[in-house]
C-alpha cells in the first residue's frame, strides 16, 4: 500500500515537474531564488578567499538576502581529509570563518559547522584549520562521526537514492550554506557543490554501490537545498583528488564561485578544473532532472576580478 502511494506520488510529482519543465521555468521551480539576486552566479578572481567572498556576496545583495535575523545557519564545508590547508583537500578555513562572520552580521542566531569526514574526524577538524577558524568566528563546531546524529529522510522521485540518513543539523537549521572546495575526483572527475552533500549523509557506501553519479544527482532532489553555494577555488587540487598526495597536485587559482544554483556552480567549477561538463555525469543528470542549469551561456553571470 505504501509503495503504491509512493509510486503514485512520485508519478504525480514527475508529471508536475515535467509539465513545469516543458514551460521552461525550471530554475524558478527548484532554485530558492532571492529577490535581491541580480545574478545567477558570481565568479570572483584574484583576491584572498575572504576578500573574494566579501565582494561576491555583495553582488548578490549581501548575506542579509539569505540569512534573516534570528535564524540558525548551517555552514557545510568540506573537512573530509586529515591534511593541512595548503594541500587544498578541505575548504579554505579563512573562507569558512568569513562566511560565518557574514552570517552573524546578518543577524544569525547561531551558526553551525560540521562535516561527515572520511579520515578520523578529530584530526580532520583540527588539521584542516577549520575548527579553529570557525570557532574564532563564533560558530559551533559539531561532530558528524556517529550515526546517532543522523536522521532518516525520504527523497521522493529519487531514481536510485530514495532515502538517506542526514545530519540532524540539516533539518534543524533554517538556512543551509554549502561551502565545497573544488577538487579533482578519482571516479566522478570533479567534486564541488553536489558531491559535497556526501558529507551530510551517514551511509556513503550505499551511494558508491548504487550508481554514484545517479545518487549524487538524486540527493539534490531533497527539499532542504542550500540557499547559497560558495565554491572555494583558491587552491585547487587538479589531480590525485579528492585526497591528494602532495602540493604538486595543487594549483593556485585564486577564484571563487558563489551561486544559488548548484548545478550551474558545478558546471562553472568543471570549467575551472578544465573538465568537460559532460564527463562529470552527475552534472548532466542533475540538469536533466531539472535540479539546476548547467548551460552557463543562458545564465546571468557576474565576473569580477580583483
Amino acid at each position, binding site marked *: 500500500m505504501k509503495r503504491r502511494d509512493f509510486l503514485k506520488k512520485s508519478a504525480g510529482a514527475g508529471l508536475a515537474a515535467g509539465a513545469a519543465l516543458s514551460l521552461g521555468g525550471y530554475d524558478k521551480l527548484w532554485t530558492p531564488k532571492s529577490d535581491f539576486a541580480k545574478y545567477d552566479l558570481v*565568479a570572483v*578572481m584574484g583576491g584572498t578567499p575572504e576578500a573574494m567572498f566579501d565582494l561576491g556576496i555583495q553582488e548578490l545583495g549581501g548575506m542579509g538576502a539569505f540569512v534573516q535575523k534570528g535564524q540558525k545557519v548551517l555552514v557545510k564545508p568540506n573537512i573530509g581529509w*586529515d591534511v593541512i590547508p595548503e594541500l587544498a583537500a578541505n575548504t579554505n578555513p579563512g573562507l569558512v570563518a568569513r562566511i560565518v562572520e557574514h552570517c552573524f552580521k546578518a543577524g544569525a542566531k*547561531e551558526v553551525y559547522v560540521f562535516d561527515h569526514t*572520511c*579520515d*578520523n574526524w*578529530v*584530526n580532520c577538524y583540527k*588539521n584542516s584549520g577549520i575548527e579553529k577558524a570557525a570557532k574564532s568566528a563564533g560558530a*559551533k*563546531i*559539531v*561532530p558528524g*562521526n*556517529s*550515526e*546517532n*546524529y543522523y536522521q532518516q529522510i525520504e527523497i521522493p522521485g529519487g531514481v536510485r537514492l530514495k532515502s538517506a540518513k542526514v545530519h540532524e543539523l540539516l533539518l534543524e537549521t533554517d538556512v543551509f550554506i554549502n561551502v565545497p572546495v573544488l577538487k579533482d*575526483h*578519482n*571516479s*566522478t572527475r570533479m567534486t564541488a557543490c553536489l558531491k559535497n552533500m556526501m558529507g551530510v549523509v551517514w*551511509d*556513503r*557506501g*550505499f551511494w*558508491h*554501490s*548504487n*550508481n*554514484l*553519479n*545517479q545518487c549524487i544527482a538524486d540527493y539534490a532532489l531533497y527539499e532542504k537545498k542550500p540557499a547559497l553555494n560558495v565554491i572555494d577555488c583558491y587552491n585547487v587540487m*587538479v*589531480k*590525485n583528488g*579528492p*585526497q591528494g*598526495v*602532495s602540493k*604538486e*597536485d*595543487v*594549483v*593556485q*587559482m*585564486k*577564484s571563487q564561485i558563489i551561486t544559488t544554483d548548484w548545478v550551474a556552480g558545478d*558546471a*562553472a567549477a568543471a*570549467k*575551472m578544473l*578544465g573538465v568537460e561538463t559532460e*564527463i562529470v*555525469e552527475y552534472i548532466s543528470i542533475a540538469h536533466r532532472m531539472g535540479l539546476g542549469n548547467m548551460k*552557463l551561456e543562458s545564465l546571468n*553571470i557576474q*565576473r569580477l576580478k580583483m
Partner: protein
Amino acid sequence: MRSHNLRSFRILFSAIVLICFIAIFIDFKNLIPTKYINIILSLQFIPSLLKFHNIGTLASAGFIAVLILTFLTGRTYCSFLCPLGAGQDLNSRIGGKIRKKFRRYGFKKPHTIIRYTLLGATIIVTIIWGVYLLTLLDPYSIFGRFMTHFGKPVVIVLNNFVAWILHKFDVYTLDHITIKGFQLLTYSIPLIFLFLVGLLSLTKGRLYCNMICPLGTLLGLFSKISIFRIRIDETKCTKCGRCSVGCKSSCIDFLQHKVDISRCVDCYSCINICQDKAISYGPVRLKKKEHKTDTEKRKFIAGSLILMLGLPQILKSQDKTTPVPKKESTVRENKTCPVCPPGGVSIENFNIDCTACSLCIAACPNGVLVPALLQYGVAGMMQPVMDYHKSFCTYNCTKCTEVCPTYALHPLALEAKKLTQIGKVNFVKDNCIVKTEKTACGACSEACPTKAVFMIPYEGNLLIPEVNTEICCGCGHCEYACPTTPYKAIYVDGNPVHVAARPPENIQTEIKTPVDFPF
C-alpha cells in the same frame, strides 16, 4: 616503624596509581600525552623487562628499580605499584562490606606447588617459546584487558549519556561515540580472569597474587632476603590472632610469631590491627592494629556484574551495519596473513614481545586494533591485530607505537611510519562495483593516502581501480571504504615481515594559474 600512617600512605599511593592506570586506559579522547603514559608504565615489571630485553637501555630498566625496591622493602610493588593489586585491594574491601566473613582471612599454608609450578612454567615457556604464558598472567596486562574490554566501554556509555543530555541543550562539547565491540569470543579470556581474580580477591584477599601470579611468586622469592619486613615482637604479642585474621595474604602465623615474607605484600594492615603494638615494619624486629567495616554494596556489585555480562551484547547491538549493494560480491578475500600494527617489525617479532595488555587497542584513535582470536594462532590470542572491516589505520598517526610498554611495537617517527608497509593491497576485479554494476565508485582510491590505489580507464566513461603495491602502506582505508558485501573487492593482506614502502612519487601538474574565467 609502627606508624598507622604506613597503611594510610599505602592506600593513598596505590589509589593514585590505580586512578592513573584507569585513566590511561579509558582516555578515549587521547587527552593524556604519551610521555606521561610512558612514565606511568615505566615501573611495570614485566613490560619493562621485555622492553629492556629488546632495547637494553637503562631508561627502560624499570624492572631493576622494582627488584632493588623488593630487596629493600619486600613486595611493596604488589601493594603500591601493581594496578591489579590495587584493584584487588579495593575489591577485597567491597567484599568485606558485603560479608564480614570475607575479611576474616586467617593463616593458610602457602600453595607452594601451584605457585612455583606456575612460575617455573612461565619462565620456561617464556625463554624457550615466547611470552605466551606471560601474556595470560602478567598482572598489568590482565588489568589492561579488563579496562579495554569492560572499563572503557562503560566510560564511553557514560560519555554518550552526558553527550546526549548536553546535545539537548545544543552543546556539542562532548560527542557521541559509537562503540564498536570486539568479537564475542575475545571477551572470554578477560571475563574468565575477571571472575577468577574478582572472586578470589572478594573472598580470599590476595590469594590470586600468592597462588597464581608468577610475578608475585617471583618477587616473593626476592623479598625473602629483603631488609625491611613485617615482624612480630614475641615479648609484646598476646597471641590474640587479630593480625592473622586481618591479613589479606593469609601469611601471619601468630602462634609461631612468624610472617611468611614471600607472601606478605606489605599492606601494613596488621600494624594497625595489632592492639599489643607488637607488629612493626623495619630492618630487623617489632608490633600494632585496627579494624573497620562499612555498609553493604551488594546491589552495586550485582549491577556491575550484570552490566559486565551484558556489555558484549550491548556492544554488538551498537555495531551498525551498512546496507547491502544490489549484487552480493562472490569472490572470497584470500588473506594469507593477519596485519600486525606498525612498529611490530615482523609478526614473529611482535608475537614474542607482546603481552596483550591492550593499551594500544585502548589508545588507537581510530579503533582499528582489536584483540586477536586465532589470527596469530592460539598463542597469540588477545594480541592486537588490525581489523580493516571495522576501521582503518590513520596515515598521520603513530599512537600505538608510542604507548607500547614492552617494545613489541617499536616507536616510529611519523615519516618512518608512513613508509612502513604492514600489508599489501589486493584488488578483486570480479567483486568491484565498477565491473558488476557498471557504475562509478572509486571509494577505495579516494581513501588511499598514497594513491597506491588509483583509477584507470574502463568501459565508456567509467574508471576502475588499479593497485601499485610498492607504495602501499597497508593502512586498510581502501578495504574499509569498499562498499561491497559480503566480500570486499579490495583488501590488505598482512606482511609477515614489515617492509619499507616506496615513497609516493608526484609530479608537478601542468595546469597553470588561470588569468581569466574559462566560462
